[in-house]
């Protein structure tokens, strides 16, 4: 008896279910936008998230009236939810750029199904992040001359030696470049949306946005050229953004912040949090809109693998921090790490270890990586864990500093929670508006995945 031999080379599962043509891909993805009908889940999510946006509006209005006294911050913890949430949101954004730029340069074909909505996620996450530096003083109208170098009547200029100013430039550049990258990627798809509908005003609206794109080979050449250059520019940019965010801490002399591990550990943490958020969004989306043909199990499994890898780097970061506490032989560093583990916030530290180090170990198992429920649960736990990480870094480092006489505790108020949950609402609201009005998967790039998508294969190119 001859056993069926295994094929000698590994054939990865397809990136798109068989049977699709250029036309069917176009119709299926654009139908979400153009059919005009949205599933009930969309209506429910948008309604709830819009209420949360209203809550955010109330929280910010009250902040502008009363000032930061409504928050839980005080001496010694002067940095509370505002910086925690800022870092958390910025980190979530990073996965979008990683998928759209770095995986493009690495020629990872599987990015195609997920890059559009991951980039959208980046933009909305950076918007949510940007709210916090703007409002964190409670007096945002003064931020103009604190943050931006412009000639003003007081003849004063920002302090460029401060990492907080680096942050302004890093985040605003990141937002601008991400928006451009997203828009450039959308232009050919906007042309598709222009050509399909019957209603004139819909045609006009998408026609304006598509700039009159007509798919000329001359245009495609320039388009592909700059798309690649943009990917090359975005790659160091995204790494620099979280590096600069980590400098906000690492340039300071506070034990628990002043560590050389911070830039790589923050970047890995950002990608970790971001991939968890992409999974959190992708799993319900493909279910609601029936996009399992395009966002296949292989995509989800790959994202699970990236989450596991970056999770291990983050675990290395936590271990290094603990090691520094001992090896530095510095009593303040040593105290800081013991205070984190066994001080008044011990439960948050151990919850963090559970969420960020223990939980992702489930992803070693293929059965978990190929189960949508399993992946979704792990991703949700990681989302929480990465928020706890920022809480631990910010609060436990500040609340007990060098002098026991100035120790204190930090408790967030309801206004802190309303602002934070409000930004989650804003993020979901913007994301679902995007799903309604723009194609959530790049149509023109998906066409290249269809059979016949490689024109000169037969000619041995």
């Amino acid at each position, binding site marked *: 008896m001859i056993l069926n031999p295994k094929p000698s080379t590994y054939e990865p599962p397809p990136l798109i279910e068989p049977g699709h043509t250029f036309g069917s891909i*176009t119709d299926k993805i654009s139908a979400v936008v153009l059919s005009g009908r949205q599933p009930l889940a969309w209506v429910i999510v948008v309604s709830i998230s819009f209420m949360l946006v209203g809550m955010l509006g109330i929280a910010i209005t009250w902040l502008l009236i009363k000032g930061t006294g409504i928050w839980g911050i005080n001496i010694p913890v002067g940095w509370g939810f505002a910086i925690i949430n800022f870092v958390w949101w910025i980190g979530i954004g990073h996965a979008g750029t990683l998928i759209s730029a770095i995986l493009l340069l690495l020629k990872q074909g599987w990015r195609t199904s997920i890059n559009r909505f991951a980039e959208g996620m980046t933009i909305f996450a950076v918007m949510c992040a940007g709210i916090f530096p703007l409002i964190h003083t409670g007096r945002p109208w003064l931020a103009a001359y604190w943050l931006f170098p412009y000639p003003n009547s007081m003849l004063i*200029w920002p302090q460029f030696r401060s990492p907080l100013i680096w942050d302004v430039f890093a985040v605003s550049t990141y937002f601008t470049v991400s928006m451009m990258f997203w828009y450039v990627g959308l232009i050919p798809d906007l042309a598709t949306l222009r050509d399909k509908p019957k209603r004139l005003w819909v045609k006009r609206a998408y026609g304006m946005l598509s700039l009159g794109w007509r798919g000329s080979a001359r245009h495609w050449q320039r388009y592909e050229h*700059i798309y690649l250059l943009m990917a090359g520019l975005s790659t160091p940019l995204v790494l*620099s953004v979280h590096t600069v965010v980590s400098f906000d801490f690492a340039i300071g002399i506070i034990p628990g912040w002043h560590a050389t591990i911070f830039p790589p550990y923050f970047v890995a943490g950002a990608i970790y949090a971001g991939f968890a958020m992409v999974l959190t969004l992708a799993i319900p989306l493909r279910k609601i809109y029936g996009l399992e043909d395009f966002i296949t199990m292989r995509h989800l499994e790959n994202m699970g693998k990236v989450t596991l890898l970056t999770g291990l780097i983050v675990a290395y970061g936590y271990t290094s921090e603990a090691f520094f506490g001992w090896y530095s032989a510095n009593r303040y560093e040593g105290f800081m790490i013991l205070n984190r583990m066994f001080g008044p916030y011990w439960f948050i530290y151990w919850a963090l270890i559970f969420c960020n180090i223990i939980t992702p170990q489930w992803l070693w198992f293929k059965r978990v990586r190929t189960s949508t429920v399993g992946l979704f649960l792990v991703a949700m736990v990681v989302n929480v864990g990465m928020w706890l990480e920022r809480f631990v870094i910010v609060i436990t480092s500040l609340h007990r500093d060098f002098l026991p006489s100035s120790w204190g505790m930090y408790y967030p108020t309801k206004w802190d929670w309303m602002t934070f949950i409000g930004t989650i609402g804003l993020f979901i609201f913007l994301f679902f508006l995007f799903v309604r009005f723009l194609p959530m998967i790049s149509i023109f790039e998906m066409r*290249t995945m269809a059979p016949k998508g490689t024109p*000169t294969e037969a000619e041995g190119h």
Partner: protein
Amino acid sequence: MAGSGARPPEIYGLMAEFETPTALVAAARQTYAEGYRKIDTFSPFPVEEAWEAIGHHDSRLSLIVLVGGLTGLVTGYGLQYWVHVFAYPTNVAGKPLNSWPQFIPVTFELTILFAALSAVLAMIVLNGLPMPYHPVFNVKRFTEHASRDGFFLLVEAADPKFDKQHTMDFLKGLNASEVSEVEP
């Protein structure tokens, strides 16, 4: 538009439709070999061989992006140098006024920002966008299929070799599924 004489041209050009990108690329190569130069292809996704076939490669983009990036670099460093050495000198922890290592992050970010801006603007401007009206949209099949699943080859009437009947016969001989006239 197309013609150089006083009379307005009758048509903008002729457009042939193909069913696959492979057929489009083959036809474009033959059209180019036949001596036509004012030709263009249209596809719903980038086909690298198509722009090679019509002899198009714009290499200015890399240079534009490089110049943009260098402008950002000089702007970024220059701004910080001017602020901290001339406009508003402050002594921070005894560091020199021109404390260059601390000026790197902003310089880097502005380099990327200017390079990315110039890349996108160069693509849009060199492509002649935004252009809401273009004669090719007068072809009904084009508006229905060019951004979906159709592959088109255009020969402009402005091409010196263009002769309506002769070119039409030539395009039909390339196994085009349809050849239509493009209104100006």
